[in-house]
């Protein structure tokens, strides 16, 4: 007579303890932060873990640490908490807007920035904004701590660069130039409660003469992972936002797309709208930099 296996739950208080549990159980263990993706996947029987490791008991995963140089956001900080953080909102409004687009008000109270990253959806809203910001992902594992640029973290739909025994503890946003701004926009067929058909994150820094000092553009939902549009940096740097620059930017975004046809959008639509959103996001980021 067969039997059904039980599901276990652990809530360690140190990163080392998490690493030990992960290393002991292997892939049947899952990290549990907000649970807004994990529990849904379990409910839909897409995954059937035997151990859930809750990381919210580890202080560093729950803190937002602001210094003159950088901002460190714990992996288990929720969207609602980010949205209430005035310093973060004023320095990185695009990132906060991106995280706040995830789910409903109720989901915002649970969903975490680390979870959005680790779920590794190509359409994750926070990721293009983090890539545009040149954020780094801090990873704890059996060999200690390492850091990875946000654009290198996901390696395919649902897949990350995390090795056995590793998990994300926090995300670090770098020091900004004086006149810089960021923005994130997504396209969905509704106004809320949906997943990006296209996402565009932009971060722009300006020179004193009003030309672009540096810029980064990233797109979501148009390739197996969110990706940086490197050509956009060259197009913008040293220039002003005129029609020619915007047209070149839209084309660079179109060219960077390698989307699929699926239930959320067509290749044709995603490619075209990626150019539209790229220009709109850069315009907003530029405006914010000017207003600094």
């Amino acid at each position, binding site marked *: 007579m*067969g039997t*059904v296996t039980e599901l276990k739950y652990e809530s360690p208080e140190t990163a080392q303890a998490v690493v030990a549990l992960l290393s002991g159980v292997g892939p049947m263990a899952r990290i549990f932060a907000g649970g807004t993706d994990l529990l849904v996947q379990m409910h839909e029987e897409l995954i059937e873990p035997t151990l859930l490791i809750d990381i919210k008991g580890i202080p560093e995963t729950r803190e937002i640490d602001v210094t003159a140089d950088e901002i460190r956001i714990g992996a288990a900080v929720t969207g609602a908490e980010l949205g209430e953080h005035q310093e973060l909102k004023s320095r990185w409004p695009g990132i906060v807007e991106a995280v706040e687009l995830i789910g409903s008000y109720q989901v915002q109270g649970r969903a975490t920035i680390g979870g959005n990253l680790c779920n590794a959806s190509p359409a994750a809203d926070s990721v293009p904004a983090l890539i545009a910001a040149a954020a780094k992902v801090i990873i704890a594992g059996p060999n200690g701590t390492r850091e990875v640029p946000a654009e290198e973290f996901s390696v395919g739909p649902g897949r990350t660069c995390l090795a056995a025994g590793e998990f994300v503890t926090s995300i670090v946003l770098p020091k900004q130039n004086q006149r810089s701004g960021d923005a994130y926009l997504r396209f969905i067929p509704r106004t809320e409660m949906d*997943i990006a058909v296209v996402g565009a994150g932009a971060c722009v820094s300006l020179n004193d003469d009003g030309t672009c000092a540096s810029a980064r553009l990233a797109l979501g939902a148009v390739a197996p992972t969110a990706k940086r549009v490197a050509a956009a940096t060259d197009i913008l740097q040293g220039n002003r936002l005129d029609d020619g620059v915007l047209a070149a930017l839209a084309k660079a975004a179109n060219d960077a797309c390698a989307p699929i046809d699926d*239930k959320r959008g067509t290749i044709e639509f995603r490619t075209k709208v990626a150019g*539209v959103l790229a220009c709109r996001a850069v315009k907003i980021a530029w405006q914010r930099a000017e207003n600094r």
Partner: protein
Amino acid sequence: MANENSTTNYKWVGKRTRRPDGVDKVTGRARYGDDMTVPGMLYGKILRSPHAHAKILSIDTSKANALKGVKAVLTSAEIPDHPLSQPPYAPIINDMHDISRNVMARDKVLYDGHAVAAVAATSERIARQALKLIDVEYEVLPHVLDPLEAAGRAAPILHEDQFTYSADGLSDKPSNLFRSITGQRGDLDQGFAEADIIVEREFTSEPVHQGYIEPLACIATASEDNCVELWTTTQGHFVIRALCAKLLNMDLAKVRVTASEIGGGFGGKNTVYGEPVAIRLSQMTGRPVRMVMTRTEVFRASGPTVGSRTRIKIGARKDGTITAADAETWYQAGAFKGAPVGRAAETFFSSYTIKNARAVVHDVCVNRPKVAAYRAPGAPMAAYAAEGAINELASRLAMDPVDIRIKNAVREGDESLMGTKYGQIGLLDVLEKVKSHDHYSAPLGNNQGRGFALGYWMHGGGLSSVSAHLLDDGTVTVATGNPDIGGSRSSMRVMAAEELGVDIELIKPIVADTGSMGYSHLTAGSRTTFATGMAVIFAVREIIEKLRALAAKKWRLTIDQVTWEAGQAVASSSSRGGIQSLSLKELAAMATKMGGAIAGHSEINAGGAGAAFSAQLVDVEIDPETGFVTPLRYTVVQDVGRAISPDYVEGQMQGGAVQGIGWALNEAYIYDDQARLQNTGFLDYRMPVASDVPMIDTVLVEVPNPNHPYGVRGVGEPCLVSAPAAVANAVENAIGQTMSSLPLSPPKILKRIDEAQAAGG
């Protein structure tokens, strides 16, 4: 919120009162299908087909049966079979042969999600595990999803025993086309010959789900003496009783069904899904069995409404007189026959006096879940085509879209295409009200467009039972057999208080189970406030009769010397010197000592529900770079007969508009190339959320229905009939291009804009 023409003679009718179900709903105390538990209950789960069309070669349940905690495993062998129904067929077919196969596939699976086996276990987790241990061997067959394709010669056949039925009898070969309904009058050739202008269009619409927020759920408790108690979320527990008893060969009296509080239905909870399976599992185990569907199961296996492929041709003279109209449409019924073809033929041209007209509607089986009713079944997709064509006609004639409808509008005494004769109707009043509304002439900005459409629906009456009891403290219970979906408890209470002339808070409305009441048909077809409401009035009038008799006895008068006025029995002045009266409370206290408790009941088959019309104006703005549509302003003008509870009537009108917005813009089933459903949740089945819709303004036009004591008409359905057509018309107007295929999703709109730009338009 205008509330026009309301008479002020009523004390409660037409007033905005506290809702009787409000406290339980806002506190979470209201018990929905999923909120019930019974001691000792087991968890039922259904194994579903991963194939759209396949033969079932074998099912091996031995491993599932061996799992610890599994108490029963069921296949179609445990569900009685029934013979195929034979012609002549009723307009609405409840074929037990089909229902038996829909609740549990017999020899073939006919859609992705079709039930093939079920288990009952001591926990949900064990039940889910057990499903994985059932081995089903399939022979996958070619599938067909499109009704036009399915009706063609080359299509894979779903049912080898289904033949096309027509006046000439049955076809020689099996066919996915079950039957075609035709409504016709006049001479089409002559009508089109008289036309100065002819519009020919094709329109398509996709199946859409009712999207009720509460998934299907039930608990069945069977006993050894062949009795069953069933708790379920349904629009009609008497219908559920009838279907379960008939399917499982049980006595009606031994099946007692209680309707839970219901979290929306919109027609989708008019039939059985898990109920017969739960009953059988309970009979097999001797324990209660609870069966709750997940949202994924609801999308894969419960009925949406039909999708349609329509060809339409309308001709008119230069002055706007429509001389001829011809429509042919293919409705996909899903896996089993029964698309709402009659109502579709009825709906196409029924708002207009067109001398020469025809509507042909085909009922076609495809490899999708069997369709269920959905708010004005069959009508919105017909109206989408007809209203779309008439809007184009108006545009090409440079005529005002409301004026062309006024010119052709039906009036009292006219007949619909299917022969329904109109009584007192409010169509012209509705159209005049639209023209005078400030929305109609409000300016539009860039990338904005305005849409207009008219919707018609012929309401249902039917069987309703009511049992009203005066209690000895002077309060009154009013029990009906109709689940309260759209505020019926409030309306019943208002009508009972109005008749009795007492405070509304003295009346307690109740939804009673099938063991306590006479037969009551579904809460559907916008019939409940009309038909069951009428039964409430009659039941309460019986109480009043008995109270007059009681007062007469007390005063030693005859009953005709006692009248009922403002909640009191009053002796007529001629019969006694001074004025004498007895209040409801005084009479209630006397009753048990003077003859017994006082009750009134009514069992009726209500006729004369009549037609109603809903006109809708909607403004949208299009983002020309993304195709995104923002509905900006929405106004629904509807003939509601008499609004018993205006808050609910407005809510119905707003809800119809919201469902229509979703239907028009984004809702669709998405299948992969194996016909497996890809969007089985609200994330990707895109119904509108609150932020997607503007405030929906409502204008209540009250042209009373003479067949109801207070003039009630149905209100829940006409407001959806016109909505998809109105929204689609607004999109066309905003982009200056025709579009003929719902949903008008951003990729389609963007493509149309780009094509038009490329063509230099």
